[in-house]
């Protein structure tokens, strides 16, 4: 049972069944303690479930880190309209591969989390929105749903409690922007995957114009454990502001990339050097993107004292995001990496808002020109100007995400840009 790599520092709560194919079946899941959280939830009632989640301090694992219990309490109490729970399984942030593993190895854990959350918010229907590329995961979750319905965990009269909750898995068509919560809602409704203007917020007007809460896969996967063991139990790990454990998706130039579940507040250098075996022999660390491609780059200096919790990474000048740690060693051409990321955003921009639609592709073109040695120093000012115009000016934060690596890389690796720019100049002279 050697899920790609494991490490002694790990605290495997939600990833305990990774690498264990038997846990995929209902029987295997129950043998490992599954569905006890749901049973307890039905005993203690919705209000207490929300209190436990609030007490745990669980924060949204999709990137924004919003307190989950608080989010749940925004849902209107009165059940005048249908309420919906959406599980965001459109994991598309470059560098992120935790939700896929949570679904592949432990589908029932997610289904149980969905059922508890739906129960707590008075929702009779939960949707699991999977990204189009998750073919295997969609098959696994479909099989697990069949089992759950068959055993009376989902559907009408759950475990004889009279509660009715349906869970539907829906496969999107594969667009980054459908991971944005309102874009996901539009896509689920059969519209173009374009984010909606907020307000109104999903808790008031969400999918099908009904009160909706949307949670990430990892958030919901933690819920059964919190409900089973209590909110205080979850706080034994992590920091005061970032309690609990978190999956870290480490990719890039490390010896042992992979998913590692660690208590929040874990030192970044320990993750890279100890847990992941460090960068290749003879190489040095150059830069880390700590939370998926949407967050600012850090240089080696920033990483030294950084702890991996929401407040820790913020103090180091970036964001924890969804904890997708992309490690780059000294072989990396930063300008090329940044261009590659911005190009991704240009491709994935939905095209609604002008700054994003035009800005992302313009940025790509300017970065390509610099890469090709045809840039000038004024291009850097233009890029920074563009970034400012693309930050906080659009409906969703896709354009902010595209701007973040540009700004941070110009700030931290300006020399690399200048080298490319002046290499071009000297070549022309020669």
């Amino acid at each position, binding site marked *: 049972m050697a899920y790609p790599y494991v490490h002694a520092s790990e605290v495997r709560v939600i990833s305990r069944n990774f690498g264990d194919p038997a846990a995929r079946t209902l029987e295997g899941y129950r043998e490992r303690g599954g569905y006890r959280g749901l049973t307890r939830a039905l005993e203690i009632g919705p209000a207490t479930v929300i209190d436990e989640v609030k007490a745990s301090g669980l924060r949204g694992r999709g990137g924004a880190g919003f307190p989950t219990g608080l989010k749940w309490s925004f849902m209107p109490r009165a059940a005048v309209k249908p309420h919906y729970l959406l599980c965001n399984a459109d994991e598309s942030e470059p560098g992120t591969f935790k939700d896929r593993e949570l679904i592949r190895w432990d589908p029932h854990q997610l289904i149980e989390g969905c059922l508890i959350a739906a129960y707590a918010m008075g929702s009779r229907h939960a949707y699991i929105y999977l990204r189009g590329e998750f073919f295997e995961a969609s098959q696994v979750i479909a099989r697990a749903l069949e089992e759950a319905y068959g055993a009376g965990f989902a559907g009408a009269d759950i475990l004889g409690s009279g509660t009715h909750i349906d869970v539907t898995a829906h496969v999107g068509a594969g*667009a980054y*922007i459908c991971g944005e919560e309102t874009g996901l809602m539009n896509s689920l409704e059969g519209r*173009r995957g374009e984010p909606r*203007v907020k307000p109104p917020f999903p808790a008031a007007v969400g999918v099908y114009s009904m009160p909706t809460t949307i949670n990430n896969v990892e958030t919901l996967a933690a819920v059964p454990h919190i409900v089973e063991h209590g909110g205080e139990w979850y706080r034994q790990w992590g920091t005061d502001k970032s309690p609990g454990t978190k999956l870290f998706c480490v990719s890039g130039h490390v010896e042992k990339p992979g998913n590692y579940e660690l208590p929040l507040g874990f030192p970044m250098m320990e993750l890279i050097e100890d847990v992941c075996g460090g960068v290749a022999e003879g190489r040095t660390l150059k830069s880390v993107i700590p939370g998926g491609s949407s967050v600012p780059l850090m240089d080696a200096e920033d990483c030294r004292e950084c702890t991996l919790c929401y407040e820790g990474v913020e103090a180091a000048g970036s964001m924890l995001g969804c904890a997708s740690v992309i490690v780059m060693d000294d072989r990396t051409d930063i300008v090329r990496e940044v261009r590659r990321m911005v190009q991704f955003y*240009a*491709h*994935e*921009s*939905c*095209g*609604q*808002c*002008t*700054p994003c*639609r*035009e*800005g*992302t*592709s*313009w940025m790509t*073109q*300017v970065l390509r*020109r610099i890469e090709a040695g045809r840039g000038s120093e004024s291009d850097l000012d*233009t890029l920074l*100007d*563009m970034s*400012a*115009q693309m930050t*906080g*000016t*659009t*409906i969703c934060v896709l354009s902010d995400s595209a701007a973040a690596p540009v700004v941070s890389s110009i700030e931290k690796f300006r020399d690399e840009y200048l080298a490319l720019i002046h290499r071009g100049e000297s070549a022309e002279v020669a």
Partner: protein
Amino acid sequence: MSTVTLTIDGRQVTVPEGTSLLHAAQEIGVEVPHYCYHPALSAPAQCRLCLVDVEGAPKPMPSCVTQAQDGQVVRTDDGLAREMRKGVLEFYLINHPLDCPICDQSGECKLQDYVHSEGRAHGRGIEPKRVFGRDDFGGDVLFYGDRCVMCTRCVRFMEEMAQDPVLTVVERGDRAVIDTFFEQGLRDSPYAGNIVDICPVGALVSKDFLHKARAWDLDHTPSVCPNCSQGCNIDIHTRDNVVHRLKPRENPEVNGHWMCDYGRGRYEWMNRGDRIEEPFVRGDGGWSAPGWHAALASLRERLEACRGPVRAVAAAHASNEDLAALRELMDRLGGGDIVYRSPRAPDEVPLPGFPVLTRRRDLAPNTRGAELLGLRRVGSDDATGGLEEVAAGAGALIALADELADQPEDFGSRAELFVYLGAHPAPAARSAHFVLPVTTFAEQEGTFTSVQTRVQRFEPALRAAGHAQPAWQVLGSLAASLAGRPAPASASEVFDRLAAGVPEYEGLSYDRIGARGTAVDRPAALAGER
């Protein structure tokens, strides 16, 4: 209704609760630039041009969807808001072809206007531009993808107003482009021409108007659409005394911001060159052109001498003033029957998202006005036939504005006196004793009464052809002279006399009617119910 008071650009404004910042700013005369917002359509807040700086907000807010709050301090014109607009406008120009010199929208283009007033003096984009090319959407609409600013007004018009969602955005990012489903085009959607009007730039242009005139050379004259009885408020756009296009003029009670393609496309007749330009009198020695003074003096004599019944055929294209003058002359001559013929379509064509606006069955603009003056409709739905009775008798016969195209050449030959007043030569008028040139509605001032019994004014957009005079002037001066009164000096004076005689118009005057018309206090009868 509760109100909120806020400060915009240092000035206090009080607006009803729920008002958007964009509207609140309009209240004090501040126009926040915008593309995607249109008052009649939903607001997607995606053009990001109407962003304003709201004190205390974490980021600039789209003023089209942000509601005004009590005590809010909003800045639209300095610092952050201006910087944001400058930036967004630069983004708009990255892929815009800047082909203003050959673009029909030039001069009435919001991109041009905004960039001129607050954009960067010099663009920094040196990369090759994305090219979409041109697409024929069918009907009168041509799409220039490169000029598009992706405001999606056209998509939302077709969805929300025409309720015929044939337009959509395909692809995403900067590859996003407006298109029709599998090249099916607009499929002759009867209101599709409006997307050309609401397109803030030159992406959607009219094929009919393509390269005909520059926007700044056009004169705009407020008028009323003459192509059905709905009475859509329009502007007639003319250049050098030629009508080039009709555009809807906003009137929330009649046509909103819209007009139908049927009405929009039928203006060429206003430019007809075959006009009667002088009054003609037929005497023993054949036709002569003695000038208005002599012709009217002679006509007056003949009318006084004429014994027997007087009959008239008029057209419901004539204004209330023309018809009222005809009625008064008839009354002066001892009374008589006035009939009219008008074309009728088989169906009404409503605009589903704004059903007040309907292309009516009655295709003449003033059938309601004709009826209020006691005119009787004859003939068939294609405005032919029905004149046997009128043509049969002796006595005097007056034909006004009906070209009598279906009538035989000896029409009116049995009348003791046959007077033809028209804009265009009519073969059926060769038996006439007097052929008097009158102006079309586009060359005179007047009113039409719409199907909703709404009286609406129109103004002259063209110079009169030759010596043509408004029919109210010709007929009104004859009636006045027979009554020993001074001739009417203006259409407004004729209307005042009309208002005194017709109960429905009681108390109305041109001033009271105003620029957007006045509904006469009577329930609107639907076409076909009459």
